[in-house]
């Protein structure tokens, strides 16, 4: 059984990590462990396939060494084959013996618009801004966020309400990214846009009277030094990521690096019986 312990972190990182859900302490449903196993498999497949992740690729291709995921340097327990102990890129000092310095670190997260309802029946908005800590002011790369969600809504007769595209689990997870350049500059999408980052927004309109339900957005964000956009991760100028490079395929550099910080929102409402508001939209966000 594997356990996680708290890891050393710079102040800015601790503040972001503190807002993440507690890590599993007994090898339970810890995201880090699950990510590690999945990532190791995907990276193996990716390497075997020559770069792009291909479902069904075999891991025993000749001459391909198994690749794994990074786990926190203070991870307690044996590592799986291919896993590597690592410290965040902004770790102060030399990595402990047996650990490497990851390309990933946690960006600072400032709440611009606290999670709040915009209507009685499921509408919400929430905005946070990423930042690069001073210790990484010379670094360049991308802030990458994995976005996932769950959604359930019913009418007052307990019949399922069809989700809009933004609430349809078939459209998740996805990955989106903001480039950062030396000098702590963060951009909307690629730096070449010349558009300075303002904030990452989760916003949605409600479902109206006669509905009730719950929406949860679960995101994981990290900054990756030297990240390169994989083929197919492009700006679409459309929902949901708009000006950001977007992909439905997990980038290998995201899967293979230390876990990021949690960024979540839950909205619940009950506008039943129709014409009444039993429970106005409530929003809980983290951070």
């Amino acid at each position, binding site marked *: 059984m594997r356990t996680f312990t708290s890891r050393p972190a710079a102040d800015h990182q601790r503040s972001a990590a503190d807002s993440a859900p507690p890590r599993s302490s007994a090898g339970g449903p810890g995201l880090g462990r699950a990510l590690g196993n999945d990532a190791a498999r995907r990276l193996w497949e990716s390497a075997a396939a020559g770069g792009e992740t291909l479902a069904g690729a075999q891991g025993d291709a000749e001459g391909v060494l198994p690749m794994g995921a990074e786990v926190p340097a203070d991870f307690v327990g044996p590592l799986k084959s291919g896993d590597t102990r690592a410290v965040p890129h902004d770790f102060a000092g030399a990595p402990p013996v047996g650990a490497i310095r990851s390309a990933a670190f946690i960006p600072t997260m400032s709440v611009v618009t606290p999670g709040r309802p915009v209507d009685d029946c499921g509408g919400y908005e929430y905005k946070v801004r990423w930042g690069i800590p001073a210790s990484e002011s010379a670094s360049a790369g991308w802030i990458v966020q994995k976005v996932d969600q769950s959604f359930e809504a019913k009418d007052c007769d307990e019949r399922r309400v069809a989700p809009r595209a933004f609430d349809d689990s078939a459209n998740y997870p996805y990955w989106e990214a903001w480039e950062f350049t030396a000098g702590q500059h963060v951009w*909307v999408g690629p730096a070449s846009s*010349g558009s300075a*980052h303002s904030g990452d927004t989760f916003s949605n309109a409600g479902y109206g009277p006669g509905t009730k339900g719950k929406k949860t957005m679960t995101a994981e964000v990290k900054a990756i030094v030297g990240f390169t956009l994989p083929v197919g991760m492009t*700006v679409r100028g459309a929902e*949901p990521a*708009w*000006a*950001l490079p977007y992909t439905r395929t997990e980038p290998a550099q995201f899967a293979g690096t230390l876990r990021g910080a949690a960024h979540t929102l839950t909205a619940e409402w009950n506008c039943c019986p129709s014409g009444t508001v039993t429970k106005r939209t409530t929003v809980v966000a983290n951070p």
Partner: protein
Amino acid sequence: MELLPQRHRHEADDSGGQPVSPTDPATPPPHYAVITFTAGQSVITTQGPLSPKTFHHQFLDRYELGGERHHPGPASILHGALLATDGTTVVSVPIVTWPAPDGTTRFLCQATDDGTPPALSVLASSESALLADLAARLRPSA
């Protein structure tokens, strides 16, 4: 004298389930025009038809946001506007420019970044690229 009737946004779509004739002057089909503001005068640089579906999606419907849209900064300059109409409602979307880090100019056609319509958002590295992208985004089959 009768005052102008109050107009309703969806009035032009009420055609009894039948396609609206593009030749009916009383209910002209949706269309758009891009106007460039130049010194002393404005010029229509391109125009074209829209489908009712595209008009609603790009100009009337709210949009959902799980990432980020552009935010023109103080260095941005108003360059022109896109006007779109379905015969009842007129929507305008500003076109602004700003200098990119590489010294070239970025052209953005976008009005909001908060989920309120219009949803249309196109960023390009030249005016011709912007017009081409707009035409592709707004063509009736889109």
